[in-house]
């Protein structure tokens, strides 16, 4: 009797497994017909709450037309400081050398504010990056024909690197900051390559190697496990990402993209 029960259970179990196998056969054919979802960039996602539209305009040549709009988005404690800094940097017109200006009376408070905004909300971070891009446009950071100084470009690279270290990975899937973060990386590559090429007869290897190490860590190339930011960079700027991963001149791809994206941002205040 017990043996008969066990036999009956065994056959029921067998047919259950066979039925499960048939279901898997059907599923394995059905899943092949699943249509792929269309590609969506972070900026394609519509945010429910009020948001800053087209953030890349705030990094472009026409940023002064919209920069005042940021005043209401910056967090309350930073607002007066941001308004003052914004007015200062957007009023710059004499194209001062970047290091001299930023170490001067006008530049120091702006640099402090950039650091404070960087530690704030995502809107604060965008405001911070807007100031950095405006400084990059309004100050001279090209090495110069005779002086061949690398420190201006290195300083600009430093500002961008600090921003990317805090916001690079977080911004990869953020509708507001995804594009600005990639633009920051592209400009960072150009600034650091400018510093690399600054000496007339040789190359300045220290900023170049620092930049390659930092970008390798940020994109995950150095660890062999690509980060979200690395994926976003590869999807948007494939050649730059490929050069960064294995080229003999890792920053050249970023420089080429920067020249195409921001032709006016060459350090010479055109």
């Amino acid at each position, binding site marked *: 009797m017990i043996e008969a029960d066990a036999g009956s259970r065994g056959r029921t179990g067998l047919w259950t497994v066979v039925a499960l196998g048939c279901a*898997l056969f059907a599923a394995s054919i059905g899943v092949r017909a699943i249509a792929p979802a269309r*590609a969506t960039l972070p900026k394609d996602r519509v945010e429910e709450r009020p948001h800053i539209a087209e953030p890349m305009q705030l990094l472009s040549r026409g940023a002064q037309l919209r920069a005042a709009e940021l005043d209401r988005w910056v967090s309350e404690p930073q607002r007066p400081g941001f308004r003052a800094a914004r007015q200062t940097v957007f009023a710059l017109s004499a194209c001062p050398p970047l290091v001299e200006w930023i170490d001067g009376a006008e530049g120091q408070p702006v640099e402090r504010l950039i650091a404070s905004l960087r530690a704030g909300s995502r809107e604060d971070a965008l405001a911070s990056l807007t100031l950095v891009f405006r400084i990059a446009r309004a100050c001279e950071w090209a090495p110069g024909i005779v002086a061949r100084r690398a420190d201006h470009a290195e300083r600009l690279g430093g500002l961008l690197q600090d921003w990317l270290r805090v916001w690079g990975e977080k911004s990869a899937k953020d509708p507001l900051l995804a594009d600005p973060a990639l633009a920051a990386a592209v400009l960072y590559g150009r600034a650091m390559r400018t510093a690399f090429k600054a000496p007339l007869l040789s190359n300045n290897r220290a900023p170049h190697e620092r930049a390659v190490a930092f970008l390798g860590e940020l994109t995950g190339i150095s660890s062999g496990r690509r980060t979200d930011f690395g994926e976003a960079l590869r*999807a948007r700027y494939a050649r730059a990402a490929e050069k960064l991963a294995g080229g003999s001149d890792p920053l050249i791809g970023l420089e080429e993209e920067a020249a195409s994206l921001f032709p006016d941002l060459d350090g010479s205040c055109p």
Partner: protein
Amino acid sequence: MTERARPSSWHVAIAGLLVGAGGVLLGLQVDADGRFSGTGLTTLGIGALLALVASFAQVRASGLPRDAIGAFALVAAFLGFAFVVAGALAPGGPWMFFEVFLLFAFVASRRRTSDSGGRGIGGATLVALGLMLLFRLWVSYQGSEHRWQVLSLGIPVLSWLPFEFLDPIKRVSLGSFTPLELGFPPAGLSFAVSMTMWAVGFCLAAGGIALAQSGAIEHENDRIHDLIQTLPPTLARLVERLLPEDEWQALGLHGLSERRLMKRIEALASARLQRQREIQSMFQASATPALPPAGGFAGEIWQALSKASAEGSGR
């Protein structure tokens, strides 16, 4: 009394699970945003075509299945082969047709040499498919890195020169393809996850095929054994001694209906017994005064046969 499920039936059922799970994994890919999509039905169609050829070969060798478990084993092997081929082929374009051509040529050559030991899909075929899977993984990797060619070779001398303006002619691309040919999702392929799924799926489906085929053979042997066991015990032992189990498939007993199986066993047992008698009588007739001298090849043979005959008489 309810009959218990045999281990061979369980083997076939588990093989179905393995093939099904492998098919699901081989049928999916993950895009850069982590979303699943299908790998398409085109390659499955080609896989099904090749699997049909393999199944025909199997049916010719082993006959049609005679019960539900046998039919399930055949379906599992058919689908498993279709999934494995679909998973190993490049998803589209000239590379896919080139691989299909190679595979047809390979399957045809294996059928001529019939290396698969009575199975429709042999180990050599699975190894060839494994190599094709490696090629597919390679081109998928290249595509996921936005490199749209199988290989990029540096031209000697030119590629050593440190002049950027020579970049366009420093390297030559071999075997170019497009994202459309690879069937990539619009957001791009997440290579690591997709590769893992395909590799695991391939192993599961290939393991399922092997298990389904061995399970089907064992299941048929069980059916024949059951029939022989309906004879009186001494007669059943004699028949199983005359017709050893490992020869049943080669003797064409697999896939026969019960009535034809009885006739075939009867004919084979009779023929083998007749042959046994003929050998015995020939041996006895050869025991003439003209015995070969001890030692040497003839003497050794004679001693071995005498010993075997004495042992047989003793039993």
